[in-house]
């Protein structure tokens, strides 16, 4: 996990994008971009070499879960580490996200410590593979 890694933050609420961006900056990650929907996020991911995706679930155009499925289906993006940050906490949703291939799942409201913990975990697992 290198501090310069390119991160895309996707959420339809701009305040939430801002909070996550600031938390990432706090953790030393300054190379962040934003998208306000799964629909706008997909072409951005396809165009630039991103190292990490953080996405919400509920979005009006393409929902987070469908964005994840699209990413995993695209051979150029399939290995992208993905963290879901969402208010959705039903068991079946978490299962669906796991089956779709997320690497981590954080439930809102969350703390800075939890976000850091989950991110560290994701990259630890990836590095030991």
């Amino acid at each position, binding site marked *: 996990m290198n501090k310069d890694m390119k991160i895309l933050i996707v959420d339809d*609420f701009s*305040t939430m994008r801002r909070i996550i961006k600031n938390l990432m900056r706090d953790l030393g990650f300054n190379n962040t971009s934003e998208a306000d929907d799964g629909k706008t996020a997909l072409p951005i991911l396809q165009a630039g070499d991103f190292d990490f995706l953080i996405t919400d679930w509920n979005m009006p155009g393409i929902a987070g879960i469908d964005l994840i499925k699209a990413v995993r289906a695209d051979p150029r993006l399939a290995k992208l580490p993905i963290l879901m940050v969402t*208010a959705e906490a039903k068991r079946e949703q978490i299962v669906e996200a796991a089956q779709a291939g997320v690497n981590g799942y954080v439930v*809102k409201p969350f703390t800075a410590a939890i976000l850091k913990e989950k991110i560290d975990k994701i990259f630890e697992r990836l590095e030991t593979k």
Partner: protein
Amino acid sequence: MIDMSEEKKYCLTQARALVENLEQGNDSEVNSLIESIAKFHESALFQEVGKLTRQLHETLNNFHVDSRVEVLTKNEIPDAKERLNYVIKITEDSANRTLNAVEAGLPIAEELKDKSNILNKKWQRFRQREMPVEEFRELSNEIDNYLSWSVIQSEKVRENFSNILMAQDFQDLTGQVIRRVINLVQEMEGNLIDLVRVSGQRMKKEPQAENSGSNSKADGPRIPGCDSHKDRLSNQDDVDELLSSLGF
């Protein structure tokens, strides 16, 4: 349903016959003509009322069998109240978290400022060679203490800012909840409009103002886009101006 133009033709015929008989003074003819015109109108009216009643009855029946309305009443409206209470709760929590962080952070910031000032004055005297050696030894210790103290304090300040950052998460959560309630209200609005339309009442333009004892009705915070701000002042300056014009 009797055709309007037929009705008119019929009325015209009867009216002409009525005038003729009146001119000729045929009282009994006149009376029976008037009676038959009245009966004709009565039956047309009855048919109209009957039609409207059937329509209303059907719509009311549809309301009962429409399970969506039942779900709305039993689940979603109580749900909506819960959701709005939740919005009140977490906005309050967020405000408190922010205020706590500010109340913790401000004194630290003030102390940092004060201590820095005091130390700076002494340091400047040293720089201008106005400080004897013993005093400098003391100053040296003070600087030492200040540095280790400020390392700890500045971490506290950073932490408080971080807490304020996180406290803003209410906007996203309440936004999602409120969107759902808006959808619910729109659905109910649709149902009510249908009901009102069928029952034949026209929608009144202005709601009747309730007489609540005081002349002013409490409106809550100013929400752009709502009619409620016709009489509202837009900011503190305007309020102050009004108060001072009243002699405060």
